[in-house]
C-alpha cells in the first residue's frame, strides 16, 4: 500500500478584505477547511471553477502562503514547522509547472541556466556534473542540446512548457504541482505535453497535484479527483468512480456543463441558475444551496460534512 506523501488537514486560508476605515474587517475565505491525501506516485486532480480555492491550496503547499488554520504534512512532518535540512529537502522534492509558459520563465536567462537553477539553489550538483545533468533533463523532455544557450522567447509555447517541466525535474522531485499545464497551449500541442507528463510520471513514480478546469484532461491523467466549490471540497473519489457515479449535485452540474466530444453526445442538462457566490460572503449552510436544483431546507442552515459514502468515495451533501 503506497505511503501517504502529502496530507492536507483542515486547511483554511482567509485573506483580509479591506472594508474601508469604518467598516468591520471582512475575510475572503479562499480555502475553508479542506482535507485530502496524495499517495506516493499517484496523480491527484483538483477541479473547480474560478474562486474555488485550488490555486491558493497550491501556493500553500509551495510555502508561498501561510495557513490561517490547519496543516500540511509531508511524510508525516508538518511543512510549516520545517527548518534547515528538512526544509531544503522539502523544497527540492516539491516543484511546480504553471499555466503560462510565457511568464513563468525568466526572459533574461538562458535555458541552460533556467534548468540548472533548482540544482544550484538546492546545492545539489557540484561544478562539472551540472551541465551533464542539464543536458540529460533536456533530452528527457524532448528538447535538443542546443537549447541550453537559447532564450525562452526563441521557443514556442509548447516548447517553453517543456522547459518548465525540465526545470521542475532538475532537482529530482517526488512531487510536482501542475497548475493548468496545458490550457494556454494550442490544441494540437496539448496531447504532446500531456503524454510527456504521463510518461515522466510513470518513469519516476512521481506524485502530481493536477489543477485543471477541463474535466476531460483531469480524467485522462488523474488517479483520484477532488471537486472544489467556494473554498470547500465537495466530493473526492477515484477517477473512474467519480466520472461514472458523481454524487454531489455540483459535480453533476459540472459534468453536465462540460463540452461534449461529439455532437450526438446525450447528457442530462443541468443548467445552474445564478452566479458563483463571492468567497467574501458565502451562503450560510452549504455554499452551493442557492444554485442547487436539489436543495432542501436543511441545506441553508447546516453545512454538510465530507463523509465516506462508499469506500474511497467522499461526498459533502445532505442528500
Amino acid at each position: 500500500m503506497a505511503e501517504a506523501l502529502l496530507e492536507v488537514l483542515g486547511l483554511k486560508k482567509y485573506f483580509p478584505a479591506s472594508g474601508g476605515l469604518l467598516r468591520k474587517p471582512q475575510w475572503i475565505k479562499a480555502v475553508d477547511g479542506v482535507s485530502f491525501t496524495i499517495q506516493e506516485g499517484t496523480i491527484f486532480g483538483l477541479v473547480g471553477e474560478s474562486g474555488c480555492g485550488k490555486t491558493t491550496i497550491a501556493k500553500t503547499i509551495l510555502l508561498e502562503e501561510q495557513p490561517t488554520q490547519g496543516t500540511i504534512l509531508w511524510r508525516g512532518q508538518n511543512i510549516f514547522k520545517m527548518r534547515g535540512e528538512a526544509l531544503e529537502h522539502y523544497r527540492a522534492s516539491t516543484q511546480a509547472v504553471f499555466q503560462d509558459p510565457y511568464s513563468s520563465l525568466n526572459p533574461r536567462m538562458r535555458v541552460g541556466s533556467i534548468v540548472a537553477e533548482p540544482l544550484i539553489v538546492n546545492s545539489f550538483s557540484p561544478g562539472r556534473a551540472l551541465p551533464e545533468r542539464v543536458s540529460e533533463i533536456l533530452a528527457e523532455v524532448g528538447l535538443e542540446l542546443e537549447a541550453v544557450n537559447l532564450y525562452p522567447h526563441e521557443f514556442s509555447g509548447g516548447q517553453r512548457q517543456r522547459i518548465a517541466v525540465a526545470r521542475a525535474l532538475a532537482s529530482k522531485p517526488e512531487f510536482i504541482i501542475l497548475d493548468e499545464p496545458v490550457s494556454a497551449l494550442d490544441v494540437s500541442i496539448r496531447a504532446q505535453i500531456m503524454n510527456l507528463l504521463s510518461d515522466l510520471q510513470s518513469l519516476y513514480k512521481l506524485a502530481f497535484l493536477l489543477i485543471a478546469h477541463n474535466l476531460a484532461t483531469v480524467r485522462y491523467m488523474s488517479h483520484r479527483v477532488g471537486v472544489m466549490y467556494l473554498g470547500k471540497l465537495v466530493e473526492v473519489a477515484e477517477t473512474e468512480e467519480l466520472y461514472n457515479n458523481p454524487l454531489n449535485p455540483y459535480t453533476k452540474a459540472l459534468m453536465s456543463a462540460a463540452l461534449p466530444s461529439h455532437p450526438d453526445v446525450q447528457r442530462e442538462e443541468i443548467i445552474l441558475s445564478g452566479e458563483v457566490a463571492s468567497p467574501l460572503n458565502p451562503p450560510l449552510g452549504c455554499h452551493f444551496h442557492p444554485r442547487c436544483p436539489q436543495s432542501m431546507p436543511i441545506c441553508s442552515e447546516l453545512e454538510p460534512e465530507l463523509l465516506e459514502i462508499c469506500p474511497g468515495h467522499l461526498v459533502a451533501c445532505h442528500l
Partner: protein
Amino acid sequence: MTPLLEVKNLQTYFFTRRGVTKAVDGVSFSLDKGETLGLVGESGCGKTITGMSIMRLVPQPAGRIMGGQVLFKGDDLLKKSGKEMQHIRGDHISVIFQDPMTSLNPVFTIGDQVGEPIHIHHKLDRRALLERVKEMLSVVRIPNPETRILGYPHQFSGGMRQRIVGAIALIGEPDLVIADEPTTSLDVTIQAQYLRLLKELQARHGLAILFITHDFGIVAKVCDRVAVMYAGRLVEVAEVRELFNHPAHPYTMALLRSVPKLEEQVERLQQIDGQPPILRALPPGCYFVPRCSYAMDQCQAEYPPDVEISKEHRAACWRLVKS
C-alpha cells in the same frame, strides 16, 4: 436561395518589415440565415482575421484585404465605403469578442452601452430606447434590469459582462453575429448557460452565427456546419456530424484524435508531433506536410486543391484526389 453570407477567395495579408504574413489566403465559405457555422483552428490560423475582414475591421496600416469578395445579402462588403460599413456594423452584422472587460467601456453605464447601437442607427425617443434596453437586458437574463441599467461594467461578474456584450450585439436585431471565442474566459458552468442563451436568441431571431473557436467541444455543442482552418487556409468544410464521424483532412483527423474525451478513457492520447508553421515562411506544397502521417511526394510539391467528398463536404488533400 442565396446564402446570407458568401465569402469567396478572401485574402488578407499583413505587411511588416520582417516580410509578408498571409494571414488569410484564399478562404471561401457560405452561411445561411438561422445557421451556426463554426470557424475552427488554432492560434495564428487566421480565423479572427477572417471575422475582422468580413467586418472591415482589419488592423491598418499593416493589414490589407488583398482580394476576394464578401457577399452579404448579395452585396459585396469589400466594395462599400467606410460610411456604408458603419451603417452595417451593429445593425446588420455585429461582433462579440472574447474579453468582455476590454470590449466594454469602463466609464459608461451598461444602459448607455446597450442602447448605443439603437441610438446610432435608429431614431427612437428616450423613453422607447430605455424600454428597449431593459427588455434586452432581461432577454439576456440580467436580473433587475431597471436598477442595473445604471451600473458600470466593473460591478458585474465575467459571465454577466459577456451577456451584456451579447445584449449590445443583438439589440439592433442583426442578421449575422460574429462571435469570436466568446466563452474562453468563462467558467464551465457559466459557459454552458451562455451557449444555451445564444442558441435561444438565435432561434428567436433567426440569426446566423459565425462562431470562431479553437474548441471542438463548442463546435460539437452549438454548430451546424464547420470550417477548419490551418495556416491561413481552409482545409475542410462539412456538416458537423459528418466532420466528427468522417473527418477527411489529416489535420482534422489528428486533432480530433488528440483531444481527451470526457465520455471515454483511453490509454494514451494520439499526439500530433511538430508545431504549426510560421506564416511568413510557408512551404510551396501543403502546409501540414511536416506533421502529416500520410504525406506523399506530391504533397510537398504543390498545394492540394479542394476536393468535393460529398454535397456539403470538401477538403484540401491530395489523398482525396482520384487520378
